């Protein structure tokens, strides 16, 4: 009798711990998906895109409208990527390229772009848009269940991060773009078209933001301010990442996002947020060059 009871309690604890792991992974993967585009643009160009949240929002609306028009969800995601990549290239060509090397000016310009996009979205789409909703289906461990879509997002975030990493490490474009950020003059003098590379990078980062919007729109209803929810943490992850931008951002998000999610589960959501920002501040205090400051690696 006593044995049986013990066993039951143990299995409950096991379910709870496993499920906590799953919840934490899902929170990290959402942040990671929302951060990648920003990380690429900052890491490869030294530009902080303050309109990143609005890029995510626009991508969300592209997926939303094309799904509602009958396009399959996966294809709609592709559309979001392509649409935002084109949009990003245009923005880079018209505005960003004139401001390279002027960090504060690009901050101001992208912030302005964000404001215009936000109010534009309110005027165009209105404040209420019906969401597409999450697909049915749940993953269960013991008495706990979560939406299976969040499980899928975990896999997607891993695949997406690996793809971005490989593009910058293995392809010719990737090598050239890293050369362009590390030593622009040297890169230019050996014939790397740095301007063209920058346009491609900004476009690629924007496309990733669009894809993120598409991936997130089932769980987070599309509203003009939906991107704002993710960007503050994405910015902090990118800033604390340091020179190895992709691996640094992944490390930060797993570490800080993980601890914050777990404290959210144990205590309250507010404490989870406090923990996130406190750890970030501590990291920047003790590793002023970011977590990857002393690392030897490619990205």
């Amino acid at each position, binding site marked *: 009798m006593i044995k049986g009871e013990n066993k039951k309690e143990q299995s409950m604890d096991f379910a709870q711990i496993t499920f*906590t792991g799953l919840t934490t992974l899902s929170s990290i993967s959402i942040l990671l998906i929302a951060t990648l585009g920003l990380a690429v643009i900052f890491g490869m160009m030294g530009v902080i895109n303050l309109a990143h949240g609005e890029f995510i929002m626009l991508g969300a609306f592209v997926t939303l409208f094309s799904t509602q028009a009958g396009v399959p969800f996966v294809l709609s995601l592709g559309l979001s990527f392509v649409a935002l990549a084109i949009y990003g290239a245009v923005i880079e060509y018209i505005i960003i390229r004139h401001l390279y090397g002027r960090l504060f000016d690009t901050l101001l310009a992208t912030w302005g772009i964000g404001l215009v996009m936000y109010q534009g979205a309110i005027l165009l789409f209105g*404040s209420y848009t*019906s*969401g597409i909703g999450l697909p049915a289906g*749940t993953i269960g461990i013991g008495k706990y*269940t979560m939406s299976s879509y969040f499980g899928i997002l975990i896999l997607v975030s891993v695949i997406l991060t690996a793809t971005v990493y490989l593009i910058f490490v293995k392809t010719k474009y990737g090598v050239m773009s890293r050369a362009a950020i590390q030593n622009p003059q040297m890169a230019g003098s050996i014939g790397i078209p740095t301007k063209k590379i920058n346009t491609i990078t900004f476009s690629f980062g924007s496309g990733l933001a669009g894809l993120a919007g598409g991936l997130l729109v089932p769980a987070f*209803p599309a509203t003009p301010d*939906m991107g704002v929810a993710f960007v503050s943490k994405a910015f902090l992850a990118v800033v604390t990442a340091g020179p190895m931008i992709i691996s640094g951002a992944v490390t930060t998000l797993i570490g800080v996002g993980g601890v914050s999610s777990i404290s959210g589960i144990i205590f309250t959501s*507010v404490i989870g947020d406090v923990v996130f920002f406190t750890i970030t501040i501590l990291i920047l205090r003790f590793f002023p060059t970011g977590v990857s400051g002393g690392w030897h690696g490619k990205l």
Partner: protein
Amino acid sequence: MKTSIKALTTAIAISSAVPGMLLAEDTVKIGALHDLTGSFNIYGIQQSEALKLAVKKVNEDGGVNGEKVEVIEYDTQSDDARYTQYANTLIIRDQVAAMFGGLASSSREAVRPVAHQNETIYFYSALYEGGVCDKYTFLTGVTPSQQLGVMLKWAKEEYGDKVYVVAPDYNFGTISAHWVNEYAEEYGLEVVGEDFLPVSQSDFSSTLQQIQTSEPDFVVALPVGSRQTSFYEQFSAAGLKDRIGIISTNYGSGNQQVVVSANAGEGIVASQNYFQVVDTESNSEFLEMWEAEYGEISDPIISEANDTWNAVMLWAEAANSAGSSESDAVIDQLLNGVELDSPEGKIKSLPSNHLMHQVYLVEGDSNHSFNVITKYEDVMPEYEQSVCNLLEDPSVSRQFSPGS
């Protein structure tokens, strides 16, 4: 000093000498503070439309004491600082007889002291956490003591005894959560857990796990703003809606039922004094007028629109029976009880500067709308009435909250 008195007497002399000439152009000005831009414009735009519609109706019916009502409106941009600024502008420069508007409780608290100091009546028209007691601030929205009591009693019957509270981390959320605890004790419910959400939060995985750990029979969900609306989506997708009930005092007030998917919205229970589906004669007239003025209704009319309409109507009624639109005369009428037929049904002003309301318990359907489950008639703001009597003590100016 001497010249100004002289100028004043001359002015009075002139105006009393030619009353007929001025009468044709005489208007009484009212001020409106609405969030026409920024994140609260999902409420502000409808509040503004409702106010103008109500003023039009008042003017068609002969105006206030024979004068036409004129609206001076400022866009407060969802920014509390603008509320203070424009409230001052309305009073000092525009010299309005009354002020209307405000959505977030913080914006109301920005206007309230300005109204009180200048002894100008201010109507706040949104559901809120309750407890404000101030002669110059009249609250036409519904309060927790009108919504939560009836709803928790109903939920106990329907779902069971164990309740979990999810609320935003600012005064509306924390005070409402406090109310849930008070009523839980009264009705023999057990609060098995609470989570307060940062306003920027939109990933609710942690909260959903906590809910599952505490195994409640139902959840009181009070998310505010478009980002927190995703709570309903994620709650439903995690499969919790099948085994845990979900009730809310503010679901629908920002048309959340339109934003969430049809699946997620089905079965969410809410209680307020007005939903567009409310079936009263005055509501059909109200909706007809709305369509005649603004065309076909695409976004459902929210309770704040009803509350704003009621504010204008109450003010006009009180000013007409007082024979003056002076704030103190209007307030005197309101404190002694003005009764009106409104879109929600019968309303009556009370000595706590709140309203007796009709409260509707509704359930989300599978088509982004609601079905009415029950109507609670003539519900009093018990708490506000118990702590606040402005007829007896008109000098009070504070917000009461349970435990304070």
